């Protein structure tokens, strides 16, 4: 796609605005068509809400390559032994059978913004009135010297759940006594800000039982990280002496890995490691780039309806979008999906569009029954999704409060899974 064409599409949209949508609908002699790409917390939720609330007035197609979806949230708990991998898996059967969503297990590989069609690897061409992209993340090439996706078998990222999670856990279980688990933590912004540090907690929990003399080494390019005080308090309490984090002041941003030799160099110091969990810098899932709606690594969107700033007929949800203050999390994507569904349904069927409102809460588990959380509410401004109010667990909370927080997180998992898949 050329820059000229992009500019042209942009200006055409600006000129006709939302009025174009009903005209297209009329011209298609059928139900309005929404194509959703990506069946995670954003995509599954928006597909379900559109289908559920439109009483058959909207034809919803969901394109998702995997038949069984593994949630990234709670995959750290699988590493720690608190969940089975099976308990994180969800099928799309309910969305198809209960809500009449056309679930297509295929890869979306092209978007023609003029013709308003999506093409798939399987050779389908799907027309849309509105396209909703919720493709999650991909990794920035060359972000960690020595690592590319071909090395993910030796040095897993496990930042897309499923086989990568199983591989990482098997590697940790196979570590020699007294061995080293290393993590290369990602720079901001990235999926699930507390995720790497919850993962360290869960790996420490596992190692404490099966390999108590093992070490954990974190190379971190960031000065500070989410829930830092809570994690560091927990690491001191539960895993004293096990975890070493090297921040940017000591070269944590200057790393290189060698997947063959199993080494991690931090600021030139070569460490032999037994497991190397490389979580590279992230960007929007590739289809956003293919559609030509990214700026830098992410797809900028308008806060009120998650519509792309470059194409009013495309919306982008979840980790892939640049929206403002919300962290990239499953909860955020689920929250954005409901606002987007309400707005898209309004445009396509004339239903009432209520003002956007968003929320997020991230729970993390530090050790058995030691749960913490951070959350906030958000609103749409002209500029961005802006934080309104928030809270965070406090250091030194009682064991009862921490256990209640963990139990609440288990309830939340069931809640959001039901909200995504029915």
């Amino acid at each position, binding site marked *: 796609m050329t820059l000229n064409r992009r500019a042209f599409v942009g200006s055409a949209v600006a000129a006709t605005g939302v009025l174009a949508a009903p005209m297209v609908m009329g011209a298609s002699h059928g139900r309005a068509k929404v194509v959703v790409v990506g069946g995670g917390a954003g995509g599954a939720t928006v597909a379900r809400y559109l289908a559920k609330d439109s009483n058959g007035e909207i034809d919803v197609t969901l394109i998702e390559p995997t038949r069984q979806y593994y949630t990234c949230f709670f995959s750290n708990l699988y590493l720690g032994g608190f969940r089975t991998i099976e308990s994180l898996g969800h099928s799309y059967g309910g969305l198809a059978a209960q809500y009449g969503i056309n679930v297509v297990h295929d890869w979306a590989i092209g978007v023609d913004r003029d013709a308003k069609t999506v093409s798939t690897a399987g050779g389908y061409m799907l027309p849309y009135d509105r396209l909703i992209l919720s493709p999650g993340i991909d990794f920035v090439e060359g972000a960690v010297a020595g690592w590319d996706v071909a090395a993910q078998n030796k040095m897993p990222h496990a930042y897309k759940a499923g086989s990568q999670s199983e591989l990482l856990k098997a590697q940790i279980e196979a570590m020699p006594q007294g061995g080293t688990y290393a993590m290369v933590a990602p720079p901001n912004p990235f999926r699930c800000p507390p995720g790497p540090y919850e993962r360290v907690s869960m790996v420490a929990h596992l190692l404490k039982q099966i390999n108590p003399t093992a070490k954990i080494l974190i190379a971190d390019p960031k000065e500070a990280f989410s829930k830092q005080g809570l994690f560091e308090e927990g690491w001191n309490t539960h895993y004293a002496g096990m975890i070493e984090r090297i921040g940017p002041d000591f070269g944590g941003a200057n790393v290189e890995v060698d997947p063959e030799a199993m080494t991690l160099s931090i600021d030139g110091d070569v460490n032999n490691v037994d497991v190397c969990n490389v979580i590279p810098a992230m960007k929007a899932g590739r289809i956003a780039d293919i559609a030509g709606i990214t700026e830098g690594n992410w797809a900028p969107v308008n806060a009120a309806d998650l519509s792309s700033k470059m194409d009013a007929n495309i919306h982008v949800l979840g980790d892939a979008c640049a929206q403002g203050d919300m962290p990239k999390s499953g909860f955020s994507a689920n929250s954005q999906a409901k606002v987007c569904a309400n707005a898209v349904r309004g445009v396509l069927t004339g239903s009432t569009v209520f003002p956007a409102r968003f929320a997020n809460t991230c729970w993390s588990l530090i050790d058995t029954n030691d749960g913490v959380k951070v*959350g906030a509410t958000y609103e749409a401004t002209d500029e961005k999704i802006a934080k309104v109010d*928030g809270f965070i667990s406090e250091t030194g909370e009682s064991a009862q409060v921490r256990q209640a927080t963990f139990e609440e997180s288990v309830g939340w998992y069931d*809640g959001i899974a039901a909200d995504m898949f029915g």
Partner: protein
Amino acid sequence: MTSWPAITCTVVALVGGATMARAEAGGDPDRGAEMFRQCAGCHQVGSGAKNAIGPQLNGIFDRSAARAEGFAYSDGLVRAATNGLAWDFDSLDAYIENPRALVSQTRMNFRGLPNQQDRDDLLAFLRIYSASPSDIPESAPTAQAVDHEVAPEILAIVGDPTYGEYLSGECTSCHQTSGAANGIPSITNWPAEYFVTAMHAYKDDVRTHPVMQMMAKRLSNEEVAALAAYFEDVE
């Protein structure tokens, strides 16, 4: 944050809603970088910034005043910090407008920036070097001026269940519409009166759960009623 209520009120009172819009637009950080030249004789910011004549300014938003490690502050600024001065949009805005008006014995020898746009741009530049909510969710959105009081609507009793259904999306990320309860309680089919009473108990901090307090506090009385009407009869 307990920072400087008197100053906050003045700012809000003078410019009202415009403060919000302008602050959210966030100023122009590029122009702010130019403004910063007049500060750079004393202050460093960015990668590798160190204390010099003045303290380094990384992470200035969101922290208590007089907190740059290893910097010897004036007694005046230390006292202000002890009294609760913390740096956010409003307090920094007041400080750089006229440092001595905010902290009478500060050693910051700067006449101040009388122009609001100049201050907005400078603060937008400085805000880049502090934690952002999207990266560290517990960070306060300190780049924006906080507009506190919206006059409370009093009792719109009859809830609109259609609106309630939309609002319920905020509940169903955790609470299940099926009524299943496991770690998180069921909220379906409560008599509306009980539902409204419980939500107001969170709004007023009588019930203590922090997530629920946060969710309830942003709901108007009308919205609480709408949710109650929807959940009362949900199937």
